[in-house]
């Protein structure tokens, strides 16, 4: 089955992962800008990173027939440094019109601090002023519920952003209803320990339906599996869900969301 992984950090993965994903049916992916595992020293490091996301990775993906898209921002963790964040945000427009850029992301909160909230709102301002899609990271573990609610509050205050142009990611059992009820796209991340398993994600699909739901591996340099979306496909099949239903979740939904970006073309 063809699928799209709408959230995976391929700069942290081996070329072998591209090959395995292609074998499993991956036809496209999107790569949000994120934390490198250490705090970068200057805005220049982000310039290099944005070049990697917009120039190098699309070529590496294309070797395996996979279309590569990306999102640009300074991540929530480094957003604690407001001065650095503003330098990076000022640089983003230079890259926004590159053909594989889908919008602003993954912005959000990490520890739900005032600085993170300030930079989150400044990213939203950039997205609204440029009519860009937005991809949002919600915090980890004990911070997720509070942070997700705070994010939804801030989104509500930015009335220029239409909910159907925003995806709030890393949803779990205690946050999914809040996101969907507010009209946003909702991402679920398949992680071995700290987020959703394929079984629990399938439970949530059965509970909330397939509309506006995306499923991703969020594969990166930590414990994660770039083959997680095919695991969800298998779980849904084993539970008796039809191919059309499964395809809607793993291919049609991300395709529809990406299509809202004016730079996205159905065929490369």
């Amino acid at each position: 089955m063809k699928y799209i992984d709408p959230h995976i950090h391929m700069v942290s993965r081996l070329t072998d992962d591209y090959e395995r994903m292609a074998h499993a049916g991956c036809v496209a992916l999107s790569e949000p800008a994120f934390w490198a595992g250490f705090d970068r020293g200057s805005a220049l490091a982000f310039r290099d990173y944005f070049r990697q996301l917009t120039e190098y990775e699309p070529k590496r993906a294309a070797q395996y027939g996979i279309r590569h898209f990306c999102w640009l921002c300074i991540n929530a963790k480094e957003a604690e440094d407001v001065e650095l964040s503003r330098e990076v945000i000022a640089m983003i427009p230079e890259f926004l019109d590159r053909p594989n850029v889908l919008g602003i992301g993954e912005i959000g909160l990490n520890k739900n601090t005032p600085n993170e909230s300030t930079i989150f709102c400044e990213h939203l301002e950039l997205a609204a002023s440029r009519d860009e899609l937005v991809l949002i990271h919600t915090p980890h573990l004990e911070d997720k519920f509070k942070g997700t609610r705070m994010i939804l509050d801030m989104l509500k205050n930015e009335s220029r952003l239409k909910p159907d142009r925003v995806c709030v990611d890393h949803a779990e059992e205690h946050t999914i209803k809040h996101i969907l009820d507010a009209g946003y796209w909702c991402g679920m991340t398949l992680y071995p320990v700290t987020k959703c398993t394929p079984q629990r994600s399938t439970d949530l699909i059965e509970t909330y339906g397939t509309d506006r739901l995306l499923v991703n591996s969020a594969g990166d340099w930590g414990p994660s599996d770039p083959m997680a979306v095919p695991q969800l496909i298998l779980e849904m099949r084993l539970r008796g869900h039809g191919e059309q239903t499964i395809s809607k979740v793993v291919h049609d939904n991300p395709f529809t969301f990406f299509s809202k970006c004016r730079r996205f073309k159905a065929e490369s």
Partner: protein
Amino acid sequence: MAQQLTAKTALDRYFLETRCKIIEIAANLDRIDRGDGAAAAVQDPRMVQIREAVQTLLGDGPGRAEKCQLVFSIPYDDGWSPPNSK
């Protein structure tokens, strides 16, 4: 979208996995109890959360997963002040 599995099929398919995870939890708690400083560990807020979550499992469903998530979550304060929007 309706669940496709019957309750019996779901029990058949997930029984061993559930059994395994419960035994893992029991063994994890035993390991904590065997360690030096076990009395202090019992007072750790994370142990309090674990006990509350286990109690939640014994309650009526559905919604146990969501309730357990909330046990491990920092509460949301709807009186917080978002940054001024431009």
